[in-house]
């Protein structure tokens, strides 16, 4: 239980951390405060999970890293995001994709009227070497053989699972070093969720792509991730290795559905009240 940290102390940044989110605050439409000081460290080459319920701020956190916030009239008002050794919170998404950070959005967001193959090719929009792109296309088909069979059909007519594969494959086509994966399990059958997670883990292993995964399916995410953060109401309330999280009584109760008493959320447990942190 010792390696669980109820975020009281600032974790020291190590050189292994490829992405450091430092105390960011996000405001939508200049008024709606969504993230109230979120800090994360993502280790290079690993899978880090971002857990929490609806509206906890998982997607917003990912979007503030990939900077898709701007198109939703949101902005980071405080804090900083560092990728490698660079501040990235004022780069626009196309510059970020070139630097190797790409987001797979929640709800797939395939281009419905483009074919499966065209969808994958748009992922390589920022790249100019045609031969490499072609090789990568083959690699993506290697991970997702089902997409090869359906390469000429319109993405709008493929199944939910296939669309998730398209979305992940499309991100891979950008040749990223880091993928921000938002809720890959959404609306999929348990069998398929497992399959998608397996492939994600395989991609992580083989390509060395760092993955930051936002998930509601806590059970699944903790099986594949090495480290996890729990967000509640725009704050990180808990962090720790996946192992320790799985064994934690409160996580079991609140997120894994193994319940005993009448406690419903971290806010009912005094010790987890997050203290104000002064950077």
């Amino acid at each position, binding site marked *: 239980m010792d390696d669980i940290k109820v975020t009281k102390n600032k974790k020291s940044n190590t050189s292994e951390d490829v992405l450091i989110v430092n105390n960011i605050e996000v405001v939508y439409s200049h008024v709606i405060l969504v993230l109230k000081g979120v800090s994360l460290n993502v280790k290079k080459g690993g899978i880090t999970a971002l857990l929490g319920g609806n509206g906890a701020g998982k997607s917003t956190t990912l979007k503030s890293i*990939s900077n*898709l916030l*701007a*198109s*939703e*009239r949101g902005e980071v008002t405080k804090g900083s995001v560092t990728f490698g050794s660079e501040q990235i919170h004022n780069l*626009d*998404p*196309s510059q*970020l*994709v*070139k630097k190797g950070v*790409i*987001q*797979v*959005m929640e709800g797939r*967001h*395939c*281009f*419905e*009227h*483009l074919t499966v193959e*065209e969808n994958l*090719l*748009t*992922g390589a*929009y*920022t790249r100019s070497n045609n031969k490499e792109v072609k090789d990568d296309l083959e690699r993506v088909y290697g991970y997702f053989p089902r997409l090869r069979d359906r390469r000429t059909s*319109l993405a*709008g*007519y493929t199944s939910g699972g296939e669309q998730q594969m398209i979305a992940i494959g*499309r*991100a891979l086509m*950008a040749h990223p070093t880091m993928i921000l994966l938002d809720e890959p399990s959404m609306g999929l059958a348990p069998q398929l969720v497992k399959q998608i997670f397996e492939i994600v883990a395989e991609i992580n292993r083989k390509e060395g792509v760092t993955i930051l995964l936002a998930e509601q399916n806590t059970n699944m995410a903790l099986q594949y991730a090495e480290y996890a953060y729990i967000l509640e109401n725009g704050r990180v309330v808990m962090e720790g290795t996946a192992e320790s999280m799985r064994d934690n009584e409160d996580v079991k109760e609140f997120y894994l559905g193994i319940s005993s008493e009448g406690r419903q959320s971290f806010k009912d447990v005094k010790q987890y009240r997050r203290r104000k942190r002064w950077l």
Partner: protein
Amino acid sequence: MSVELLNFIETVLNGLMSGVMYSLVALGFVLIFKASGVFNFAQGVFALFAALTLVGYQTGQVPFAHLINELFGTNYHNWYASMPNFLAILLTMVTMIALAWIIERLVLKHLVNQDPIILFMATIGLAFALEGVGDLMWGSDVKVLDVGIPSGGSIWLEEATIGLAAEGSDYYGMYVDVLNIWATVIAVILVVTLALFSQYTKTGRALRAVADDHQAALSVGISLRSIWILVWAISGFIAMVAGIMWGTESGVQFSLSLIALKALPVLILGGFTSIPGAIIGGLLIGVGEKLAEIYIGGYFETGALENWFAYVMALVFLLFRPQGLFGDKIIERV
């Protein structure tokens, strides 16, 4: 062939050709609507502005002459040198691209992810602003546009058809305006180029991707800004072509901007999101109008059936096929 049949063919032919003129305007609408989800009310003013600019460059007018003279007490109106057509058209193109850039900068950039109705209102504002700028820049008098496209009846066609009627009948051959034939050829070239571009190039694919899903396009690193500037520039170019055609036919005057209204029924017929739809819609409206005018126009005492028939056709279409003939299939998975 009987004279009736020949007349019918002539009517259809003329309808098709004037339909092409509508299509040219509708095409600009479709492009912008697809790529940025904006119904660009200013498309007609675009055409007007392009035509004004072209005439201005051609005849060597000084832009903003009245304003400059008023402010500085000078009296410049003309450079006293005209420009060759080719150069004038090229410069107008550059102007339209600059215009697209300015619009993105001043208007679109600030309205990302707003409701379509807000963007629509913005384009109405844009239409009036641009009309004002056009007036200020080039003056409001009616101008003659001549870029060397011939107009008037095609003598060749007249002579070729005069012999088709039965001997002794009172037939003088078909009348088709050469300008319309030119418009058709140019429209065909434009559409084929556009279709090839959007289907087979990387930028074209990005364009279609943006049309499908802005957010996802952003997430894979497509820069919305550059795509939007590109799209507005292309439709500015199409507006220029439309402006040249309409301007040559009826002079460059401020009522030219009203051709946008003629494009509306074309879009409803063809679908707001389809390039072939804009073409076929335009042709159908053109032919429908001409046939209606000739064959049932006589039953209406007021005449001028041509002015409102298109809108009635559009209304009927809205009832039975709201997405238009070739509009995006509404993909629905259950």
